[in-house]
């Protein structure tokens, strides 16, 4: 008994550290930037950070579910582009304002996201292609599809009602922040309160075991990718709401930002550990750095270096290197 006790005791402190480290990092970063430049610490600036962060938050939440399952989804850039462009065309075609039937474009875009995710999951599960490869390929297909649809053009969404996402503010924060908050709660509900969420953890914690418990793992995986697709679509809608433009490039950068955010937030890449709150903290860390660096006047390339270091730090923290002797 003696020995097991030591390991658990050491383990608890480590676990606690791993659990709270991301939040700690976030607070330290905020404190640092606030000291360097007091203007960082203002409601208006936090609103700016959140405006920038919300689309990535949605995408990162989508990919969080997949990572919890121990898979990975790299289709976000293509998916976001397609959803954004599909939304924009549908929206304009149906009247171009939320006051008309054009609101249907919102569920339509989410459906498009779901279909992309579904196909992605189907390819991964049925053809037994590693999720990393299947989703990366789907992402390219998505980018290509968006390019074909737009011919490289940009589609502007000028509807004041839709743009109220950005322009209308409650307590100093624009509507899109509240919308993102709502979807964060939905994601949290799915994670903790539904069989699907539970199944994600079971598959990520031990796929053999999930099978031995009679779970339909293939179905869980496909549903996971579908759900991720829906969140990619929400991210796309907020991205369009933020800059009023839908184009192939709408999806740019989401892969790096969202995966970085998930990892920095403390969700383990091998599955089973983490969740949407981790992802929220991770996304905030990434965007606080992005904003804070400019606010205190550091050049952009320092930002990338700092982010890269944080990723390594996060992985070091979240890996019990005693249990893993070799890394491939």
């Amino acid at each position, binding site marked *: 008994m003696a020995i097991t006790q030591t390991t658990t005791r050491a383990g608890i402190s480590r676990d606690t550290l791993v659990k709270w480290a991301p939040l700690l990092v976030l607070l330290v970063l905020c404190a640092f930037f606030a000291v360097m430049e007091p203007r960082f610490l203002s409601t*208006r600036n936090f609103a700016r950070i959140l405006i920038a962060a919300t689309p990535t938050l949605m995408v990162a939440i989508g990919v969080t579910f997949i990572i919890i399952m121990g898979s990975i989804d790299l289709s976000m850039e293509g998916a976001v582009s397609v959803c954004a462009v599909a939304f924009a065309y549908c929206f304009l075609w149906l009247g171009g304002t939320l006051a008309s039937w054009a609101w249907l474009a919102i569920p339509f875009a989410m459906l498009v996201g779901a279909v992309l995710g579904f196909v992605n999951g189907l390819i991964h599960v049925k053809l037994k292609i590693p999720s990393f490869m299947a989703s990366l390929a789907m992402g390219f297909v998505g980018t290509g599809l968006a390019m074909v649809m737009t011919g490289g*053009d940009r589609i*502007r969404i000028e509807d004041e009602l839709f743009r109220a996402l950005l*322009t209308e503010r409650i307590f100093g924060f624009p509507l899109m922040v509240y919308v993102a908050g709502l979807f964060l709660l939905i994601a949290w509900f799915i994670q903790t309160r539904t069989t699907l969420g539970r199944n994600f953890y079971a598959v990520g914690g031990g796929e053999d075991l999930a099978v031995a418990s009679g779970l339909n793992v293939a179905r869980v995986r496909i549903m996971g990718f579908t759900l991720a697709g829906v969140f990619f679509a929400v991210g796309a809608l907020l991205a369009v709401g*933020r800059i009023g433009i839908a184009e192939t490039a709408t999806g740019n950068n989401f892969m790096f930002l969202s995966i970085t955010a998930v990892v920095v937030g403390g969700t383990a890449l091998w599955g089973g550990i983490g969740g949407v709150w981790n992802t929220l903290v991770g996304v905030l860390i990434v*965007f606080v750095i992005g904003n804070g660096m400019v606010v205190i006047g550091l050049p*952009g390339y320092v930002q990338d270096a700092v982010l890269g270091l944080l990723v390594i730090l996060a992985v070091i923290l979240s890996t019990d290197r005693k249990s893993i002797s070799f890394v491939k």
Partner: protein
Amino acid sequence: MSEFIKDFIEKEKINRRNFLFASAYGLGGAAALGALGPTMARAALTDPTIAWSYRNRTNPYWNEIVSGGEAFVQSLGMSKDALTHLINEGSSEKSLADVKAILAKTGGNLALAIDTNDAPNARPVVEAVAEAGAYVSTLWNKTDDLHPWDFGDNYVSHMSWSDEGPAEQTARILLDAMGGKGGVVHLGGIASNNPAIERLNGLKNALKDYPDVALLAAEPADWDTQKANQVMSAFLTRYGDEITGVHCANDTIAYGVLEALRAEGIEGMPIVSYDGNPQAVQLVSERKILATVFTNPHWGGGITAALAYHAAIGSFKPSEEPNEHREFYGPTIMVQPEDALEFKANYLDSVPTYDWNDFWGPSNGPITYK
């Protein structure tokens, strides 16, 4: 796929011809003097094959370039399919191999327009063409020590663009609009990109004449709307009301800046950009952007082919032309609110019919080397 998307795709196909995605990132066009070169002049050719060698057509900018080449071929009374496309997909090796293959196939009876993909590749291409007695005009890429006049008639011309001058002009428009005082921020392209550097230099040159304007910050926004949006937001936190003008390295960046300002309810902030995209031109006409710069790739692609062709058939003798007719900058058109709609009607909504025999009319002076 639904009917409306099909419709849009159809429309876009037509539109693309008018759509100028003048974002020639990374295609440096610098130069310098001195060289040697073998010359094997031969009498004018008859009915040479006309070819354009370029990256690929899915890139809107190159699509525009090549559509100019096609327009030129059509002006000769041929079908546009008469233009031979040599697509290098971004590979200098493939570019050179294609050129050698077509020289062998045509026996040197060739008028070639080419972007050699990178500067060092220009010399072997030009030498191969001159060796075979064919004619070549280059666009964008060549080393500073390679000059058309070192190859007699066979290396007809080289065209490139410098962004520093036009960027300085837009900067002056911006600084004037700011009343010659206050603070300006610059949102640039990818930091190491040549056009990004030139466009920032343009702003810096202009600022020398405006001592009361402070350059508050210059931050790369990677030619990206969303990144620009984020960077501008952060600028607003750092400088707040100190910002009275924004200098953007291209139109895509300006869109992000406009939305960052809209989010804060800021209106009427003077902004200038670059590239002359249709939407930017529209915004210029609405005075949301004060100026953008149009580089007319359609004309550039057409005239490069025209120069090679006419030199080949002997319409003019390149070696008798002055140097500024053999190395010159491409056209830049300043688009400002007063003329934006007219410009849009002339250049974007319909393709103007160019006189492909007016080789140097719209060009922008001889290339200078630093």
